[in-house]
């Protein structure tokens, strides 16, 4: 049996699944001040009377890191940058406590300015005196050559006793220095708290005699063993929407294009599954105002939901964006879409008379019937959701591309399905689907799709291999791995083979070796380097990923 527990904003949902069916589900209200407690009480409710030995796998999501960042409760970190030539680091808006070091690496990974070791030492002393215990060291093009980051990190660690140092190249091998800096800082700022959480989970499971492997859900819909995830706590942000999307992938496997709509009390989360593959945000997640390298599904949160306040502005009805409380029909303070649904007979939630009165009050002011008001409210909600869905498709179509074929061949996709998940306002899904010319789908188990998604999501993993045959080197930044690449005329196929081999090793190290075969090349490029009129070498880049997917044990896909 597989366990999935998804900690959401208001409730924590848990399921026990076996053979493609939900054996049992449970939920508890989420207590953000005691995430561990609510995870465990959901777990206990779920496993009551179930032998711990029957549990084969446990997957959890957590809002711990998301909340820490949102509430500004992350640990103080000194961000030490080695920016070299280019932008003024101030233009990156990386916040307080930024320290700058001399030294530079260029786009090919060549040292163009030496690290100034005595400056590193004096900076380290200064950081120690200020009292920093956590330091992120990030160099521009550090992913192409990490000698400066390593050396600077080493000096800092030797000068400041007990300091925790995080190096940029270990966090991401992709281009984008400010994102790498922000992600590295967040990583070291949340690591301790996250490790504590992971230890508590491990202890609690041990107490309950659950010895099944434990995984944590990430923003890209993948899982990682809990004890490996302690090195990358930031990847656990936004796992809620990821859980829902994985739930849809598990409950209705298809190669079609679908919009996933999760209508909640105050917000509606929208996501796209394009030709069967969930759309990732193109460069990485935005966390509050910080842009990161964290791989995450492209989720759009629209400020509208069942509890959005309905107001009248002249002759117009406005819905949201704020919430004043529950619906009137649920004893709340002001009219909401939930009341409108009740009046139209589209739901049977709450007190009919109170809902009727909510609409009647507005109807009087607009000289129409309560039913007409209710219809207008629902139209406004549906319009807003539909326009955001269209915007998402437009943004996807407008994503820049850098090759002729990508621009010429990019197809136009239309939604074929609108899939409703989550508990609230399911009656709206068919209306949204109708306006998009798509089929409305409410999958079986829709209210706990998120927990199912967690239970059956498989691990994901990324590896970036870069080879510069003119310099005779290869590098896998995330692994801190470099080596010789002597074949000047290496081709893409050989590079991809090499990446696959390295991916196998990386997956084994991560404890997910059995999924290494699922790895795909998601990006690769090769450039001949011509100097004068002759070819002097090649630059090859291969990105390999185990993409989001469903484990075979689910037994449905």
């Amino acid at each position, binding site marked *: 049996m597989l366990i999935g527990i998804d900690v959401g904003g208001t409730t924590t949902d848990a399921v026990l699944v076996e053979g493609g069916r939900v054996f049992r589900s449970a939920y508890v209200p989420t207590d953000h001040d005691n995430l561990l407690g609510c995870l465990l009480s959901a777990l206990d409710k779920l496993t009551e009377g179930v032998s711990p030995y029957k549990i084969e796998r446990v997957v959890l999501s957590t809002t711990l890191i998301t909340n820490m960042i949102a509430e500004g409760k992350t640990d103080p970190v000194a961000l030490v940058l080695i*920016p070299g*030539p*280019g*932008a*003024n680091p*101030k*233009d*990156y808006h990386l916040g307080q406590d930024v320290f700058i070091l001399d030294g*530079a690496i*260029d*786009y*090919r990974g060549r040292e*163009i*300015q030496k690290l100034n070791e005595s400056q590193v030492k004096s900076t380290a002393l200064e950081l120690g005196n200020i009292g920093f215990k956590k330091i992120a060291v990030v160099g*521009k*093009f550090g992913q192409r050559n990490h000698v400066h980051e390593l050396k600077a990190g080493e000096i800092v660690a030797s000068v400041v006793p007990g300091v925790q140092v995080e190096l940029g190249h270990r966090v991401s091998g992709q*281009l*984008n*220095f*400010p*994102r790498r800096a922000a992600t590295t800082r967040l990583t070291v700022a949340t690591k301790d708290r996250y490790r504590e959480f992971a230890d508590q989970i491990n202890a609690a499971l041990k107490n309950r005699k659950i010895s099944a492997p434990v995984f944590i859900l990430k923003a890209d819909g993948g899982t990682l063993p809990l004890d490996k995830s302690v090195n990358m706590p930031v990847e656990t942000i936004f796992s809620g929407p990821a859980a829902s999307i994985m739930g849809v992938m598990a409950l209705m496997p298809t190669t079609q294009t679908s919009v996933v709509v999760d209508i909640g009390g105050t917000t509606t989360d929208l996501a796209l599954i394009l030709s069967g593959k969930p759309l990732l945000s193109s*460069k990485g997640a935005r966390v509050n105002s910080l*842009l990161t390298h964290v791989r995450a599904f492209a989720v759009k949160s629209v400020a509208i939901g069942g509890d959005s306040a309905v107001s009248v502005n002249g002759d117009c009805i406005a819905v949201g964006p704020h919430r004043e409380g529950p619906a009137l029909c649920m004893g709340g303070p002001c009219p909401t879409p939930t009341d409108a649904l009740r009046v139209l007979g589209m739901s049977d939630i709450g007190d009919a008379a109170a809902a009727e009165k909510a609409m009647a009050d507005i109807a009087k002011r607009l000289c129409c019937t309560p039913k007409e008001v209710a219809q207008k409210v629902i139209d406004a909600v549906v319009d807003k959701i539909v326009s955001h869905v269209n915007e998402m498709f437009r943004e996807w179509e*407008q*994503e*820049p*591309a*850098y*090759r*002729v*074929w990508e*621009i*010429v061949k990019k197809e136009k996709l239309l939604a074929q399905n609108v899939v409703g998940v989550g508990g609230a306002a399911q009656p709206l899904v068919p209306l949204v689907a109708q306006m998009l010319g798509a089929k409305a789908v409410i999958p079986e188990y829709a209210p706990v799709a998120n927990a199912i998604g967690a239970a059956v999501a498989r691990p994901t993993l990324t590896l970036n291999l870069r080879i510069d045959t003119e310099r005779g080197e290869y590098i896998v930044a995330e692994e801190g791995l470099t080596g010789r690449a002597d074949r000047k005329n290496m081709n893409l196929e050989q590079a991809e083979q090499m990446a696959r081999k390295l991916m196998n090793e990386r997956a084994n190290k991560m404890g997910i070796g059995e999924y290494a075969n699922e790895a795909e090349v998601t990006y690769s*490029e090769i*450039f*001949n*380097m*011509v100097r004068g*009129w*002759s*070819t002097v070498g090649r*630059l090859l880049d291969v990105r390999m990923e185990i993409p989001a997917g469903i484990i075979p044990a689910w037994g449905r896909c």
Partner: protein
Amino acid sequence: MAAKDTSNKTGKTGLIFFPAFDWAISPTHPEREERLLYTRDQIFEEGLMDLPEIEEYKPRLATPKDISRVHFCVPNVEAQVTEAHLIAAGSVLTLADAKEEGAIRNGFALVRPPGHHSMMVVHGNRGFCNINNMAIMVEYFRTRYGHKKIAIVDTDVHHGDGTQDIFWHDPDVLFISFHQDGRTLYPGSGFPNEMGGPQALGRTLNIPLPPGTTDEGIHYVLDNFILPVLKDFKPDLVLNSAGQDNHYTDPLANMRFSANGYARLNEKLAPDLCVLEGGYAIETALPYVNTGIIQAMAGLDYSHVREPDYVPGKFVQSAEMKRDIEATIGQLQEIWDNRDRLVEDALAEHGQFYRRRKRIFYDTDMINEGQEETVRLCDRCHGYMTIASQAQKGYGILNSAFCVSLPRNACTSCREDAREEFEEHKEDSKFNYVYLQDKQKDTYHSYETRTRNQRDY
């Protein structure tokens, strides 16, 4: 500029980066896949696209009509352009729209292939260019948005002879090109005495500079000539044909301009839109120059951009070079100050028609073209123009074409005569193709004499 549009709502700099990573003239040609690779690495690593000051756009494809507004492509547009050309040209149009809609304050089309050596008639590739992205943007701005006066400043090290050819007779387009002296560099033209057709004298301004000109020399030209001239001309738009081969490391030229010099130039010039032209120091210059230009346009601090081997004061301008540049500017100032009188005198001297013969060499495709160009010097409009063109490749005749162009403000009589020229030459077996470019009606016609097939855009 005094006439600068300030109606934009965002203050953003629009950027289209289209490196055409899957397109090359040939595998080892300077215009190959690798050209903007290190520029990609630098600007992506800098995270420039994420900055709130910058908005990245995706290019669209230009249409044959967009291209026909400028060029007579022989035999047709499809034969002269690849999809890469359509995307590069489409990029400038995408930014033109964004600019007009007020979505951006200014913009940079960091795209290849380049265009400024492409002339009005196109038989093939010359100077790495097939179609002129800048000119296509200018004509689009005028047709779609009704702009009248436009200034183009060509900051590539090579003379922008294609752009010059296209706007030679047009008094409403000011074309200024500074470049390494044509006696020492391709394409061998661009001297001060090339100053436009009889009705547009002084609206083409060529500033040849001695090899080895430094930041100081180029900024002298900018401060003392280009900026004041732009102030006089009061264009609706200032556009920069932003080549990067004045850089001190460029392998195809001999100037000593730095990345900081380029950034400062764009800050002072404050162009509405920039279009990349040449620049082939793909590692030592382009990553830094492009970063600097983007920052300058976006109002960001570019003082941290520096080539690894650059130190301020690396190049010092000699007294001789200084005198040389000042003398050139003195000569050009005289042309500019007297431009209206020059036009008057020229119109008095020529009769109803002005004719010139040209020989054009297409270095990339090894084509020789002979042209006879005729413009009516009309007092009611800019006059229609015809070009009889014959292209040779090796010893054989490649193609011959008769091209008729009608200006936007064509008078009835020019319209009728141009139409007549078009119809008449359709029966003339001397020409394989006959074209009518009607900018007034924004319709474009091509006719193949052998098959009697006409195509209209």
